[in-house]
């Protein structure tokens, strides 16, 4: 290298330095952010929180919050130009560009029909909190009107630390925690978890009628009407949705995460009351059910209860599915065996579990007596967003286990 070329190089480095320094000055993401998704039928509001990793300061951590329920982003990358958030175990992403101290971009996930793209805006701070009026709080029996018929749902509204919180329930589970606002006779509340995009808009019509629209995804809109709930009879009982062959012991034979074949005849299940959790790592309701099952296992294991999870995953490729299930196991601290049972389709699951009839729901919880025969099948799961229903369901699971341990039919 000649002296002149060395001078040229030095000059070039000096020229590049200010740019390089600027490129490294990524704005500080720390704190709470208002996130707005612009759906065709209105603005879905959610919040996110970000902080630097406690140990590795160059890394960012973040959570997406639907009211009191927050879930971690799979990955957070911040540069001087952009913020890239990975959601739903990397199945979806939000890419945002800095605009002053705010962010603008898109939420994106791609299926085989093409990309789904929803505009996203974000700014620092929290969404306003509005109190929930007495007329709204509680449960409402809703009818969702499809193009060729209607189907029942339950709407729940409650006053929480974040203002209006609530959920939407079907016969087999809830749609997650919603958060929103009330202005006069109008309400809006939303749920966004990276996979599911739900938005409810409604207004009061007279004293005892809500007229609204349930928005799903970018454009889907289902009109509904709702009236104050008259009790539990509005939705079918989850225990009646799936029936079972109770004449013979429940049979299963699938491989665990280490490739070992596990069956109902293994020593760990023999003579025990067994809970079979039919789940998928892709299923948000299963994520709601997992902590409750882990707690039940802790409480009942020494009393003679065993558990097993049957995972129905995305690809059917044991290497890929195995890593998803391992992540799920570690996330919830699951110590009972998780088996790779098949792919995420109710028909496929039904085919591998022929003793369950009418199987349609993830998760489905199957309770086996000490003789190995099915005593109860519970389709779906009401997560924490369902409030008292969630607690009542867990109490109900405990009562079932207590009865089975005592040998009651």
């Amino acid at each position, binding site marked *: 290298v000649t002296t002149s070329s060395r001078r040229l190089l030095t000059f070039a480095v000096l020229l590049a330095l200010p740019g390089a320094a600027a490129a490294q000055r990524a704005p500080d993401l720390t704190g709470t952010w*208002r996130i*707005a998704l*612009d759906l*065709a*039928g*209105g*603005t879905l509001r959610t919040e996110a929180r970000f902080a630097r990793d406690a140990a590795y300061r160059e890394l960012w951590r973040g959570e997406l919050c639907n009211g009191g329920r927050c879930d971690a982003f799979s990955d957070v990358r911040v540069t001087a130009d952009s913020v890239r958030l990975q959601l739903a175990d990397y199945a979806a992403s939000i890419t945002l560009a800095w*605009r*002053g*101290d*705010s962010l*603008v971009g*898109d939420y*994106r996930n*791609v*299926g*085989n*029909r*093409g*990309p789904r*793209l929803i*505009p996203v*805006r*974000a*700014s*620092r*701070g929290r969404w306003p909190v509005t109190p929930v009026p007495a007329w709204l709080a509680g449960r409402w029996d809703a009818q969702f009107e499809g*193009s*060729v018929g209607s189907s029942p749902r339950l709407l729940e509204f409650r006053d929480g630390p974040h203002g209006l919180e609530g959920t939407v329930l079907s016969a087999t589970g809830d749609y997650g925690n919603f958060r929103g606002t009330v202005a006069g006779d109008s309400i809006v509340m939303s749920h966004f978890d990276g996979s599911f995009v*739900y938005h409810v808009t409604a207004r009061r019509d007279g004293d005892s009628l809500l007229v609204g629209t*349930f928005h*799903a*995804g970018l*454009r*889907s*809109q*289902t009109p509904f009407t709702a009236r104050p709930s008259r009790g539990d009879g509005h939705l079918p009982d989850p225990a009646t949705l799936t029936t079972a062959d109770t004449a013979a012991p429940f049979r299963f034979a699938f491989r665990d995460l280490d490739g070992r074949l596990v069956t109902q005849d293994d020593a760990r299940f023999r003579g025990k009351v067994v809970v079979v959790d039919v789940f998928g790592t892709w299923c948000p309701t299963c994520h709601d059910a997992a902590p409750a099952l882990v707690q039940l296992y802790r409480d009942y294991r020494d009393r003679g209860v065993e558990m097993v999870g049957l995972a*129905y995953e*995305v*690809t*059917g*490729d044991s290497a890929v599915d195995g890593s998803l299930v391992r992540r799920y196991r570690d996330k919830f601290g699951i110590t009972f065996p998780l088996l790779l049972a*098949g*792919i*995420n*389709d109710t*028909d*496929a699951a*039904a*085919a*591998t579990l022929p003793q369950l009839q009418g199987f349609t729901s993830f998760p489905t919880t199957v309770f086996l007596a000490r003789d190995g025969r099915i005593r109860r099948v519970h389709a779906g799961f009401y997560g924490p967003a369902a409030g008292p229903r969630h607690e009542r369901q867990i109490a109900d699971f405990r009562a079932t286990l207590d009865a089975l341990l005592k040998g009651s039919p």
Partner: protein
Amino acid sequence: VTAPTIGRMVLAACCLLAPAPRSADAQSAEIARARAAHLEFLRRFPLSPYAALAQQPLGDSLVLGPDDADVPVRGLPRLLVRRRGATASVELPDGSTRALGHQAPAAIGDVRLLLRGLRERPVLAVYGAIRATVGTRWYAESAAAVQVVTLAPPARARRQPALGFDGAETMASEAGSVTLTSGETLQVRRYETGDDEAELEIFFRDPTNGRETYPAGRFVALEPLGGGQYRLDFNRARNPFCAYNTIFPCPPPWPGNALARPMRAGERYDAQ
């Protein structure tokens, strides 16, 4: 931080908190992003229509692989796919089997298999490497191609199987009709795309078909604006998947849905 900077920050924050801005600029930016995402999907996504090697009704079973197979796929060993209701199992050469779920792609060697369409009569799609390089293929965005319309209810909301723009059957129902500023009327169908999701789609033809745009016509979705009104933006008109790859069947043009004047907006078609 200077006062003007703070001013800009406050202004930016105010704008961001305002209800969804739907200015012409915002619309343009959104269309540009949607087009970029669509190109990325076509060029890079493993299940891009340009990666499709075959799509065939599954029936009771299909053999994939060698030249004498039902679906010859070069480089693929003989695979027997057996239908099990809405799902299937794949018998591999080593004697093992793989489950194949509805809408759940499975990678086997260098190909991906996907069961699509209606659960009661699924079709098997086979994807390999993306074979074509796709260029920009849209008309310049035009403000004249955007209209606000109302949806007149259908005479009868019949629900039946219909071929979607992606060359797979789904359930669809008549959703009514919209009348354009030209006085022309277009039929609308509601296509079910997921558990709680559906799209209001129009499959229309116009005099550009066959010369500048795809011969069979193009799809455009209605965007709800509230109060019974919808944005009909022909800048978002897109080709059915059969335009990208003849492996996908083409939905038959809907009776009547033909515009008298050329609609030079949305996606174009270059016969290659």
